[in-house]
């Protein structure tokens, strides 16, 4: 059932098996699985069915460091969370992303890629895709389009699948409504209250903005409020435990990661007779697990190979054809401000703008903390200090250089990058609205906030879902991995053994 918490009487107490706090990709995925298995669930949605500026204001935060985006504009405080505005990019992390990499500090998840593959398969269906088919040869065969012949080199082809994109509030509305467990709209967590022993959560104190307060008592709690607010809410629940829940090692909020993006000023000039259709968005009929197929949009991309990343000590990097189409552009070729567009006047070559994104490596000084100001619910607002290592930013330039070098060596064209007056790589940092790492997964409490089961170290019935548990973020968009991890967490909460690992 879907209920409006604004109609609740003040002081009400709800009891359930599992309280899921947050109704985005992670929260809805966990809740659906548990509801389907007969668990008594309370799913808290921190808003209504539509975007609401009053709700968005609850996400307001201060920002320092690199970049100047407004955190409240990069996520959605409503039922369905940020699935209500995502673009649908889906790509799993690579096997190497999970492994310790000695050139990337704090790398190495306590689970492996193979552990997550069975859950990636489920996640594919949750976001309305088809089978987990990401291998370039398989996709090339299904598409009938060949990738570049760059085998054994510095770059490789990868492919994104595009969710329609799935809006979880609407996509799963009927399912949530049919459940005997309530999905509560307009219901906000204000504090996690611990048992006297401080090693488990007793209840979730909740409130409606300007309305009633209520409590949810549960055997287990899942915090699924996004990469900034998962940390913020743990830090703000500090009445009984001064540094905040799960923060005995001062790690909650640290290691904030994004995906630095570069959208302007990189162009691949390709021979006109070179078939680059593998890198364009195309509908492909992909198989479904139980037979049949589904039409899915797929797009190839160029990424740095695992070999070159290890050889040069680089984080992940990928480039896709940008949305801009140079064909038919008619501008004054003498206008230096539109220098890129000059390229459009040369019809004998193919022109492909490249959008690039790079993996941000973990840095404990890139972090979410609390500031003195509070939101309308009385919860301290977040202060986000986004810090990126110089090496990560240098990877953007190096990644493009490696692509340019590979294209030249394979006689596939040339690459141009925007440079400033001194000939230095000139780019403007943009964020990807991907917030990761602030409650990172680790094998030991000294290294992270949650264990391999997504359970908060030291709090035996509190779990975290979402990209805040990412140990490292790769270059892939996070939603598919968020949903896969939520599926895996659901198995754990249901007391089921994890699916057998599938080696790549």
């Amino acid at each position, binding site marked *: 059932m879907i209920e409006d918490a604004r109609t609740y009487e003040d002081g009400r107490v709800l009891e359930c098996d599992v309280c899921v706090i947050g109704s985005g990709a992670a929260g809805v995925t966990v809740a659906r699985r548990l509801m389907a298995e007969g668990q008594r669930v309370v799913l808290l949605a921190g808003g209504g069915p539509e975007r609401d500026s009053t709700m968005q204001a609850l996400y307001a935060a201060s920002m320092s460091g690199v970049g100047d985006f407004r955190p409240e504009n990069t996520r959605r405080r409503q039922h369905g969370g940020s699935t209500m505005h995502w673009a649908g990019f889906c790509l799993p992390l690579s096997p190497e992303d999970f492994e310790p990499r000695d050139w990337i500090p704090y790398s190495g998840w306590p689970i492996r890629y193979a552990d997550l593959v069975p859950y990636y398969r489920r996640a594919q269906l949750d976001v309305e895709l088809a089978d987990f088919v990401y291998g370039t040869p398989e996709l090339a065969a299904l598409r009938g389009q060949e990738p570049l012949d760059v085998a054994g080199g510095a770059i490789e082809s990868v492919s994104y699948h595009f969710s329609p994109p799935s809006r979880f509030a609407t996509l799963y509305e009927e399912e949530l409504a049919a459940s005997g467990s309530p999905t509560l709209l307009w219901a906000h967590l204000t504090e996690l209250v611990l048992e006297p022993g401080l090693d488990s959560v007793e209840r979730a104190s909740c409130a409606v903005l300007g309305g009633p307060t209520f409590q949810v008592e549960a055997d287990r709690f899942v915090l699924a409020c996004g990469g900034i607010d998962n940390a913020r809410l743990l830090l703000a629940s500090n009445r009984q435990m001064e540094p905040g829940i799960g923060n005995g090692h001062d790690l909650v909020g640290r290691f904030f990661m994004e995906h630095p993006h570069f959208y302007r000023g990189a162009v691949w*000039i390709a021979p*006109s007779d070179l078939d680059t259709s593998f890198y364009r968005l195309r509908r492909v009929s992909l198989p479904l697990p139980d037979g049949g197929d589904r039409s899915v949009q797929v797009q190839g991309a160029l990424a740095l190979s695992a070999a070159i990343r290890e050889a040069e000590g680089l984080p992940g990097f990928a480039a896709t054809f940008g949305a801009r189409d140079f064909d038919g552009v008619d501008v004054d070729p003498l206008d230096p401000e539109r220098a890129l567009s000059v*390229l459009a*006047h040369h019809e004998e070559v193919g022109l492909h703008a490249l959008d690039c994104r790079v993996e941000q490596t973990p840095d404990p000084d890139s972090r979410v903390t609390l500031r003195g100001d509070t939101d309308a619910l009385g919860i301290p607002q977040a202060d986000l200090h986004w810090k990126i290592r110089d090496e990560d930013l240098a990877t953007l330039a190096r990644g493009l250089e490696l692509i*340019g*070098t590979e294209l030249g060596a394979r*006689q596939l064209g040339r690459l*141009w990058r*925007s440079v400033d*007056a001194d000939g230095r790589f000139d780019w403007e940092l943009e964020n990807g609205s991907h917030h990761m790492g602030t409650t990172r997964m680790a094998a030991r409490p000294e290294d992270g906030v949650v264990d391999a089961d997504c359970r908060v170290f030291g709090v035996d019935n509190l779990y975290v879902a979402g990209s805040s548990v990412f140990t490292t973020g790769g270059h892939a968009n996070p939603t598919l991995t968020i949903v896969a991890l939520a599926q895996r967490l659901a198995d754990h909460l249901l007391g089921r053994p994890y699916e057998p690992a599938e080696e790549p």
Partner: protein
Amino acid sequence: MKRRSFLQVAAAQLAAAPLGLGALSACTPPPPLEWRDLALRAATHFPIDDLESARIVGARFLDGVGRDEEQLEAELAPTLARLEAGAPIEDPETWRAAIRADFEAGETRDTGGWVFAATECHLAALVALFDVGPADLEA
């Protein structure tokens, strides 16, 4: 692939860039005169036959090399040696292979943002140093 395409596109962009270079800047050293014959050879056998584009790209490349004559000679030495070698230079495939080998070896040069092979920058630089044009070739 059209022969002129890459350099022509690059030149068009470099010419339109804020520091657009149609001629050599003041920081480029005067070239040794004995290179002029080699420059004419470069222009004659250049794998991309648009001399105006070559001049623009070459000028930008030279601007990046700087003022030191020894440094310029050291930079151009591999290509000068090939040009002095004689007959093989008349085969365009020689140059294409040299350019490909540069890329494979990571011998690239960032020229106004373009990732070019060292050899193609050197050839363009020689054309730019002597401002070689169609009339020079006819002569």
